[in-house]
């Protein structure tokens, strides 16, 4: 086969042996994934145990009100009976575990007759939509800015990018959210006589999403950009990159095929938890933009001591985080040939 100058066909020079190793790696991957999924069971169990203990030791009962007319003892006693809170805590715990085994996460204390599963089912789609969109924004923008800054190190491009990242990371998102509302909703409404403005909050699969997604993305974009820059700087000083340049490869190929592939390993490690963080919701973004998501529901559940809802959301969050980490570990196999799964 003729070899075209400057573009060695990748794989052509690799011995067969390596392919065999790849096969066995994929085979062990299946075992690895199954084992990790099984490991989630004790993880979730301990999450339940810890949450249960902390929750029942937090001061106050679900029936205390923030002020004014408190429910009378008669009503509180009946409520305790209604929700089984009159039973010993250990019995409550066993009962809860038994129900969880049957995928019954109980009824919310706050919302009459609504199950925790229903409440999570209502709230999570909002949070997941915003979180996924934010993630889709973070990956290209964060990585792109990071690579750009590294390749143009110590130029104006680098300073501007890193300056932006520092600003985005330093401003708390409630400040950014509120500023954007004033700027793009209230003032823009005034300036354009009400003809053009972004909605100040609420839900809709339209321009309602712009401000919350940007607010949610800024900090992870800044973080990803800084990390990508540092990792890329390290990679471009490696010998194989020098070789790639020496071979006369165009910049695009050097960057995509050689630099990115290697510098992304630490970035992928953080993107897993970032994704988990995004789809479990941000109470601040959801409150500022009045989005009925799960992040706000979780915080409201904690402050009102809605035990089943606290447990339900915590279990959900722990599964999401464990799954995100699992996906990252699996991705390693494809990105980093040095990784062996055991």
């Amino acid at each position, binding site marked *: 086969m003729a070899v075209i100058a400057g573009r060695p066909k990748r794989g052509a020079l690799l011995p067969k042996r390596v392919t065999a190793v790849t096969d066995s790696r994929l085979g062990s991957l299946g075992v690895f994934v199954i084992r990790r999924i099984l490991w989630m069971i004790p993880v979730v169990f301990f999450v339940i145990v810890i949450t249960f203990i902390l929750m029942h030791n937090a001061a106050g009962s679900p029936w205390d009100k923030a002020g*004014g007319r408190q429910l009378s003892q008669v009503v509180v006693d009946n409520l305790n009976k209604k929700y089984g809170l009159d039973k010993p805590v250990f019995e409550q715990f066993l009962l809860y575990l038994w129900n969880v085994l049957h995928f019954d996460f109980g009824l919310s204390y706050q919302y009459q007759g609504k199950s925790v599963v229903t409440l999570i089912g209502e709230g999570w789609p909002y949070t997941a939509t915003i979180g996924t969109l934010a993630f889709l924004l973070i990956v290209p923008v964060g990585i792109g800015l990071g690579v750009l800054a590294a390749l143009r190190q110590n130029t104006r491009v680098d300073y501007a990018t890193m300056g932006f990242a520092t600003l985005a990371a330093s401003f708390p998102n409630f400040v950014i959210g509120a500023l954007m509302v004033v700027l793009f909703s*209230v003032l823009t409404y005034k300036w354009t006589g009400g003809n053009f403005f972004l909605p100040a909050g609420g839900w809709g699969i339209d321009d309602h999403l712009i401000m919350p997604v940007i607010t949610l993305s800024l900090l992870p974009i800044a973080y990803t950009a800084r990390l990508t820059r540092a990792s890329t700087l390290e990679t471009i000083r490696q010998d194989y990159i020098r070789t790639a340049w020496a071979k006369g490869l165009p910049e695009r190929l050097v960057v995509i095929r050689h630099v990115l592939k290697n510098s992304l390993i630490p970035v992928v490690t953080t993107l897993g938890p970032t994704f988990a963080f995004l789809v479990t919701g941000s109470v601040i973004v959801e409150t500022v933009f009045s989005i009925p998501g799960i992040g706000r529901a979780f915080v409201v559940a904690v402050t009102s001591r809605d035990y089943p809802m606290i447990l339900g959301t915590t279990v959900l969050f722990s599964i999401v985080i464990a799954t995100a980490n699992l996906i990252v570990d699996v991705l390693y196999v494809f990105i980093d040939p040095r990784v062996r799964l055991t």
Partner: protein
Amino acid sequence: MHLRVSIRAVTLAATGMFVVSACGGGGTTSQNLAAPDKQIINMNDGTEPNSYDPTQQTYTYEAAVGRNVFQTLLVSNAQGTDVVPAGAESYSVSSDGLTYTFKLRSGAKWSDGKAVTAADWVYGYKHLLNPALAAGYVDPFFDSTIKGADAYSSVDVSSASAIDTFLNGLGLAAPDPNTFVITLQHPAAFFKWVVTLWVAPPLRQDIVEQAAGGTFASNDTTKPEAWAQKSSTIIGNGPFMISEIVSKDHVTLVPNPNYWGGAPHFQKIVLWFIEDANTAYAKYQTGDLDAITVPLANVDVVRNDPKLSKEAKVYPKLTTFWMVTNTKKAPFDNADVRMAFAKSIDRDKLNKQVQHDIQQSILSFIPKGMAGYDTSNKAQSFDPAAAKALLQKAGVTADQLNKFKLLTRNTTRNKTINQFIIDQWNTNLGLNMQLDVIDSKTVTSRLRKGDFDLYGPDGWGADYPDQQDWFDIYISSPTLPCPHGFNWGCWSSPAYDALVSKADTELDQNARNKDYKAAQDMLINQAAVAFIFQDYEYNLIKPYIGGLTITASDDQSLPGDLFWHDAYVTQH
């Protein structure tokens, strides 16, 4: 109503009027009414109702929905001075004050077109009083008044037969389809107000059972609430009905086509659940909301804005705030010491400097806007010299008092108010006391144990504008050991108990007023608590919303919501 101490921004009342008309009282003609498809209002209810079953509702954001979808036997008039017929056309009270006979409104219909019958009322009241369902507002209003309901707390809620025996023994009767009779345990002049509570409408047994998938035992706690989960089975008898529930986002009300009082102007009321007052404020400015409560931080902005200031409406709420001393702890068991603390708070300065000059200083218990408001007793007025003299008289030194702390809920408003108040006490009494700021739930659990020295601001919001609702909170009761949610400071007096119990049961309104006045003097003179201010609402309302009847009993951020049936949108 459940008063939330962490209430949002409120207002300055310049006038003595508490019923104001948003369109200046100008008559409407069909010319300036907006077209039916423009008769839409967007309001902010703040939080989604925890239940759409009115018997389970305990917060104002819940009652706002309950009261518009369901209708009670009687309702308050706009002035809050008396009741007017609603679900009942008229009512009569027997001469012994024990039997209330309600003649039900003829032609009243449910939103699905069926007639409202006396059996529906009996069913609604029994649903409310079922101890297994633990409705928050049964005790004390209904179980202490309706015959047989005093056994409410002793019913075994796991036994369906015990519950049935209890419910069937209640003083509720439907002698014919148009008459609903309630028998009481003892005369209670305020009972006409109890039936105005939003928790006491009729309910449809067939709908409740159909949604539950058939009949259910009385000790079942989940099936009886199935109907309240979706709009299609929430069949009410009020002026509006629910057309859509988007959980945590909004609920939409549309006219009940079968309402006896005729079709309202509003064709759609969207109640949004926006928790952040600043978001609501932004949405008002971009035209997405038609009325809001102004966030405290923006009050001055609104006052200085030429457009917004014209849309501002200020009106009192039936809510009074006070500071509590733990009277079980020396030296606060001494009335002179309590009075010294009460007299060393400059309330006007508090309202000007900390509360944007919205609230009104108050030295008494009953707020402006209902019977019993009386400013004549000024015993608690600001007077640092007299306060110091009282401390000296009691023989209490600064060292004794400096160890005390002011228990404070960890919210911005509570912290700011209490920082001002502790500074007043320290400055005016020559002390060096500290704040104790902790999260709200922990504060409540410490209050329950009596584990505090000073606490506030605590308050009361009227459930209905009768003085009984207010004065009963300081009655000491063997079934309700102190400290409890109505009386954290544990002030008590046998003379007060006797006076208020008498006023609660006697039927002559003038005699009641006289006794309540004497009881209020006791609270003030003995400094049971230190009264500090009455809450006001500071709202923005779009000028094109007409015919609003705003009252002191309106639900928070929803001006005129008790009379939305008569309000309208004008052309704009």
